[in-house]
């Protein structure tokens, strides 16, 4: 058997190096659950994970020492997503009515991809699930609650929801999360960048920096809306246990709630008017 030629070997090494470079931004990200080795939950995980967290980009906070934020939060995520949107998805964004379709306008949930890095969140847990209130998981303001089930895989026919069907398993000290089953009411960002029901979010959460920070590596994919998946890494500092969970409500006064709903209905009526006017210009009798 001939020895592999030197040039071919160097090319192969070059490929490995570039592949390594590509893997570096999303360190342990693998392409699916199946490729990682499932393990039992780490002993005492609830005590370690449960609690209050505060995202990077608070004043003075960037990332834990020695860790690099790979993608800044919005609006640079907006630019990134814009570069990946398929043409029809871009077109759909242009015809999206902000007033009627931005879920945040009247306090519908804004979904798992907004309010990312800057949000606080709380992790709660039972043996069966880990629940995230706020943060990546949407904002507390708008009912951003995701329950990540540790005791099962995906439902066969999950109802399509704002926050999807999230399941998780352990790979050593890393929590690996997979989420599908999203409705189309939420956006990639606070701009009308639309995703489809094929939205697929994979996350790997683990503690870094002496267990003081939670690192989330989040891969977002949508085979119908994006030309390629993208990955972001976020850091959240674990806060002292006594940190309060303040009450936070979207449109938290009756007058504000009523006023914004009134505005919503005004836009709804305008929209219906416009549609009717367009319809009346269409002549059905001129078919040839």
């Amino acid at each position, binding site marked *: 058997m001939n020895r592999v030629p030197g040039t071919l070997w160097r090319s192969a090494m070059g*490929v490995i190096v570039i592949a390594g470079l*590509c893997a570096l931004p999303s360190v342990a990200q693998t392409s699916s659950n199946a490729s990682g080795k499932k393990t039992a939950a780490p002993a005492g995980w609830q005590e370690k994970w449960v609690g209050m967290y505060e995202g990077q980009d608070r004043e003075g906070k960037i990332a834990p020492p020695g860790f690099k934020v790979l993608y800044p939060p*919005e609006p640079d995520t907006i630019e990134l997503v814009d570069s990946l949107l398929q043409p029809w998805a871009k077109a759909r964004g242009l015809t999206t009515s902000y007033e009627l379709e931005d879920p945040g306008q009247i306090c519908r949930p804004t979904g798992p991809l907004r309010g990312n890095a800057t949000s606080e969140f709380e992790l709660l847990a039972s043996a069966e699930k880990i629940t995230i209130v706020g943060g990546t998981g949407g904002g507390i303001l708008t009912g951003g609650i995701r329950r990540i089930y540790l005791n099962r895989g995906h439902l066969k026919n999950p109802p399509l929801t704002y926050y999807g069907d999230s399941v998780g398993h352990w790979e050593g000290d890393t929590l690996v999360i997979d989420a599908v089953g999203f409705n189309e009411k939420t956006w990639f960002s606070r701009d009308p960048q639309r995703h489809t029901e094929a939205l697929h979010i994979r996350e790997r959460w683990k503690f870094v920096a002496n267990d003081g920070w939670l690192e989330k590596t989040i891969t977002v994919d949508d085979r119908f809306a994006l030309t390629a998946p993208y990955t972001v890494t976020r850091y959240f500092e674990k806060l002292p246990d006594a940190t309060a969970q303040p009450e936070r409500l979207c449109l938290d006064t009756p007058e504000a709630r009523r*006023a914004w709903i009134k*505005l919503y209905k005004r836009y709804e009526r305008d929209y219906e008017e416009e549609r009717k006017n367009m319809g009346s210009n269409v002549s059905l009798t001129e078919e040839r």
Partner: protein
Amino acid sequence: MTRNRGMAVCAAALGVLLVALATPILAHHSTTMFVNDKTITLEGTMTEVAFGNPHSLFFLDAKPVEGPNEPMKNWSVEAPNPRRLTGMGWQRDTIKAGDKVRITGYARKDGKPQILFIEISDDKGHHFSEKRENYTGN
């Protein structure tokens, strides 16, 4: 459209990463339905004042000062949250429905009767304004 996985995606993602890191973080209100280079000043009467998080909302029967022949319409004004407003000195009952006001704000791209609040004055000597460059929207 076929999607390339593997090498080409990696290279593209890496390329985008380099571009993203090189781009300064934008601090202004993201591209929504308001423009940031055209303002409208309205004169009229408040019909509704609603403080709330994350955005307050006002309604007024008004017309633009630059269009005195335009019909009176009920305009809406998207405004900051209560903490920012009280920070300007504007308490919930400082300006009420029925008060005569003059409000300036950014216009909408589509021309609908709504503005994004910049400043307000009434006929009682109140004047409050928002530092627009700090407004990041929601």
